[in-house]
């Protein structure tokens, strides 16, 4: 009995060792092959100079990294606005009271319209359209002069409106995922509809949609770059554009891309871990 057991354990170990060796060999061959293929191809020196120029990189990286700080700030503020706006819209859309009907209608129209418009178009529309409203009309009066004209503010508003619509739908799916019995139980212990929503339904809904929310965070983080098109200065993508246009070398763009990856990859890894944790429980 013990002999067979030892025999099987040894066979299993041999199989595991062989598997490991094969995986290592195959990785070296495939990755090494690709590297050799790229580095020996006739076009490689040109590509290297265009995108991975070390001198260009060290000259421009500092400014782009400084500019990226603005991206981070815009992202943080817009994300908070999006979380609140999205939840408010989702709650309005699931409210059943008759008096809420017009609000429900507006919330529905909002999610459909703003989810349907390309974010880049929305940024353009608000970023250039709103400042045009704020200037004097034909008769010289300025009834809309109170509107913001700062490109970074307008860009943030456009991003918040676009992502608010997405996140509202994520929340709504979360609200629908909470079992009907939870609502009944909340009422049965003596809560009002509002208390049931606040203490029982919403906390569970938010917990259920954590991963998809984080996914939208990652998308938003990248889309902050869109505000460059309305002339937000000191933004990472814009800064890279300026640096690249000076000598038509695109290494600064790669530098900017690296900065975005520094934030989005850890978030994606966090998301993976979260989803694995959820799958286990």
């Amino acid at each position, binding site marked *: 009995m013990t002999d067979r057991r030892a025999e099987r354990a040894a066979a299993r170990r041999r199989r595991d060792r062989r598997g490991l060796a094969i995986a290592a060999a195959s990785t070296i061959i495939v990755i090494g092959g690709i590297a050799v293929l790229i580095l020996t191809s006739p076009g490689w020196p040109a590509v290297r100079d265009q995108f991975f120029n070390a001198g260009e990189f060290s000259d421009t990286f500092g400014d782009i990294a400084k500019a990226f700080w603005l991206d981070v700030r815009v992202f943080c503020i817009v994300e908070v606005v999006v979380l609140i706006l999205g939840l408010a819209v989702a709650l309005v859309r699931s409210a059943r009271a008759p008096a809420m009907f017009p609000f429900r209608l507006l919330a529905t129209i909002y999610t459909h319209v703003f989810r349907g418009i390309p974010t880049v178009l929305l940024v353009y529309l608000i970023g250039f359209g709103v400042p045009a409203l704020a200037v004097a009309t034909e008769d010289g009066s300025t009834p809309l002069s109170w509107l913001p004209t700062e490109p970074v503010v307008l860009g943030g508003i456009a991003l918040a409106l676009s992502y608010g619509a997405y996140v509202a739908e994520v929340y709504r799916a979360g609200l629908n995922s909470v*079992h009907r*019995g*939870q609502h*009944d*139980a*909340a*009422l*049965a*212990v*003596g*809560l*009002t509809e509002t*208390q049931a929503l606040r*203490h*029982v339904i919403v*906390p*569970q809904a938010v*917990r259920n949609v954590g991963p998809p929310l984080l996914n939208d965070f990652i998308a938003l983080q990248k889309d902050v770059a869109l505000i460059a098109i309305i002339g937000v200065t000191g933004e990472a993508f814009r800064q890279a554009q300026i640096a690249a246009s000076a000598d038509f070398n695109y290494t600064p763009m790669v530098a900017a891309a690296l900065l975005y990856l520094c934030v989005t990859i850890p978030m994606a890894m966090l998301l993976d871990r979260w989803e694995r944790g959820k799958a286990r429980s």
Partner: protein
Amino acid sequence: MSPGAPVLRLDGVTKSFGDRQVLHGVDLDVGEHEAVALIGASGSGKSTILRCVDLLEEIDDGDIFLDGEVITEPSVDAVAVRRRLGLVFQAYNLFPHLSVLDNVVLGIAKGHGVEREEAEATARDLLARFGLEGRGDDDPDRLSGGQQQRIAIARAFAARPRAMLLDEVTSALDPELVGDVLEAIRDLKTAGMTMLIATHEMTFAREVADRVAFLHEGRLLEVGPPESVLSDPAEPETKRFLRRLLEAGRV
């Protein structure tokens, strides 16, 4: 509260879901400290009666009274009525995002406005009473079905309701877990709690219930003391139901 009125009175209660009529004019009284067992096949309307009493479903016709006051008028504040009743669900319906203790605390703290500290003390006492001492900080999903159902009973009992409505509270449990839950209900009965109990446990109905009501296709066919309804039923449908249970080994 009118003196001498039953705690619960159902008077001609009628309820349909779409085209399907589930309750056909149900009349039933539950007196102070009385336990009434509702028996009948699945789909006979037992759960619907309890949900209608707790105003989770709106009835189509008839009236339901709590302490002599009608509670099924549209003008009645449903939240205030539910605060005077305790409902325990077949599937427990515990709040999975809250600890065991907070499951019991939430209703009395938010619904009844009891101070947090006092509510926690009440909840701790109740958990101990139902054999769940020291489990307050656990997640409810970590506990067995029998423990979860006892938490649900503690949660429904926490605000000292006028009556408790128990909906098949042992049907979702493995047989070896049923005993502890029935023990908790016996405890409530000893404490004088007025109860309406939908159940499949005939032995338990015989032991705890003062009266047994047999429901068949939305009609109460027979109401009486357990020894007559369960041992010597007058109605042929009751006989047939009990015989089927006997054949299934459920009695």
